């Protein structure tokens, strides 16, 4: 009950944010939401399914490129481009899942990485289609029900609405019988098979579902930036999403959201002062994995308690 009140309060705060914040912060918040949906979709696989993936940027990127290309090359409006991009990307997730799930654990990870890298390399080289390193520019935002989304606030509310909807649906997913079975396959896959569960099918369905939400984040991404570049398909992008999940703590719904906020804020502020964001990212990876594997929030708490203990025993 208390939790629901807090959540409701947070929601109210987020809704009224544009009224008392400058455009910079509203835009930053939009970016945080987009990244949060991306991270949450990765967490379906990692936290709930026990499947670590390094290729999730594929779904974000392909949906983004799909929407952009349908608009630019076929001249079709968003009301066709969006569903087409979502369906196409989800089908691709289905195909990728068939391949990646031939293995599990590290093999699965490597397959998702390899497939994602192939898309990334192709986006750079298939200049005829993607304009390569230039990226696709001059894209537009949709106007659902005729509402113009070009202003920062309007887009922010649109993104907030989509984010709330996606988080709610993902919450229902993980709390459902299917979600319980999924968590079972994470903890004891052989036992689940011995209980009658089709472990492969459970994983594949989750893979496709996670791909779908990755695609949704991709659409939000391309609408926000009105531009798409092959770098959005890169390993770095997938890794940042993974970092957000791990930083916030996997296996919970709120973890990736918190982690996405942390990583996005870090990226925004750090890149203003530090030129070499990649190096910082690398160090953050190493530090979090070695010192705070359970997530930044629980990890910090643990380290703080340990320091306090050591300090108290000396006093």
């Amino acid at each position, binding site marked *: 009950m208390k939790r629901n009140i807090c959540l409701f309060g947070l929601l109210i705060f987020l809704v009224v944010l544009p009224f008392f914040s400058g455009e910079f912060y509203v835009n930053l918040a939009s970016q945080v939401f987009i990244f949060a949906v991306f991270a949450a979709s990765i967490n379906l696989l990692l936290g709930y399914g026990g499947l670590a993936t390094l290729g999730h940027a594929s779904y974000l990127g392909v949906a983004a490129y799909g929407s952009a290309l349908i608009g630019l090359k076929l001249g079709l409006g968003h009301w066709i481009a969006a569903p087409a991009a979502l369906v196409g990307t989800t089908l691709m997730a289905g195909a990728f899942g068939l391949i990646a799930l031939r293995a599990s654990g590290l093999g699965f990870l490597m397959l998702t990485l390899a497939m994602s890298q192939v898309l990334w390399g192709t986006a750079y080289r298939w200049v005829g289609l993607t304009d390569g390193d230039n990226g696709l520019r001059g894209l537009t935002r949709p106007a659902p029900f005729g509402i113009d989304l070009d202003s920062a606030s309007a887009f922010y509310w649109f993104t907030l609405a989509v984010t709330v909807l996606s988080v709610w649906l993902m919450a*229902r*997913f993980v*709390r*459902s*019988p*299917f*979600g*319980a*079975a999924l968590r*079972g396959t994470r*903890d*004891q896959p*052989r*036992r*689940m*098979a*011995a*209980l*009658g*569960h*089709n*472990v492969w099918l459970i994983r594949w*369905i989750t893979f496709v*579902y996670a791909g779908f939400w990755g695609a949704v984040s991709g659409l939000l991404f391309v609408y926000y930036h009105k531009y798409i570049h092959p770098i959005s398909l890169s390993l770095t992008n997938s890794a940042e999403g993974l970092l957000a999940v791990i930083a916030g703590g996997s296996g919970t719904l709120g973890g990736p959201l918190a982690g996405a906020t942390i990583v996005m804020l870090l990226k925004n502020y750090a890149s203003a002062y530090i030129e070499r964001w990649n190096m910082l990212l690398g160090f953050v990876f190493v530090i979090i994995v070695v010192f705070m594997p359970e997530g930044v929030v629980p990890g910090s708490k643990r380290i703080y308690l340990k320091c306090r203990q050591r300090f108290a025993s000396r006093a």
Partner: protein
Amino acid sequence: MPTALRIQGLKKSFGGLPAINDVSLEVAAGERRLIIGPNGAGKTTLFNLITGDLAGEGGKISMFEKDISKLPPHRRVHRGLARTYQIITLFPRDTLEHNITLSLLGLSRTRWNSFASLHKAMFREEAMRILALVGLESMAHRLLSEVSYGDKRRVEIAMALAQKPRVLLLDEPLAGLSREERVTVKQLIGAIPRETTVVMIEHDMDTALDLAERITVLHYGRVIVEGTRAEVVADPKTREVYLGN
């Protein structure tokens, strides 16, 4: 009397070493069969072949005259096969009730529902009934990691019973239990309804012999002796191979 489980000419080698070497046996419906043999005789391997966790190299396995040799493990479960494990492989971070629920879900269409909330689904009543069967209903809301080893063994059996199996494989159900716990579990096994055929691997002869109607003795992956309890106990080959305490 229909044959619940028929194994014909089963073979399995590990890197050239034959673990199961042309094993054939038949278990009648409702029978209580005990499989014994020294360590390394191939008993657990045999179970793994029956459940499909291992792929055999030749031979056939049928349940109620239907060939299950090519079916993946989860599909064999849907045909009525259930099994407990020597090593506890349950879900430690979940409550006992949730563990049983996962077992009940395995055979229910509801397991594909990805929208409804689990706790509103109908499984609570049935899960509590199953836990009551093994005397653990008072601990339904404890985490599995918090209960004793003996209780975990009882949960293992409850998980299998929740599947209402036609053929139940019990892999050393008494291992590591205290004397009192052994009595409890023995009663549980004895109370399993006749609709379920029981095949059991056990080392604890004193307890297991009482439960068995027929006994199969395995040694180096082969069936050495098979017959009623009296026949097997009297057979000199059994003494040769293994009949210790």
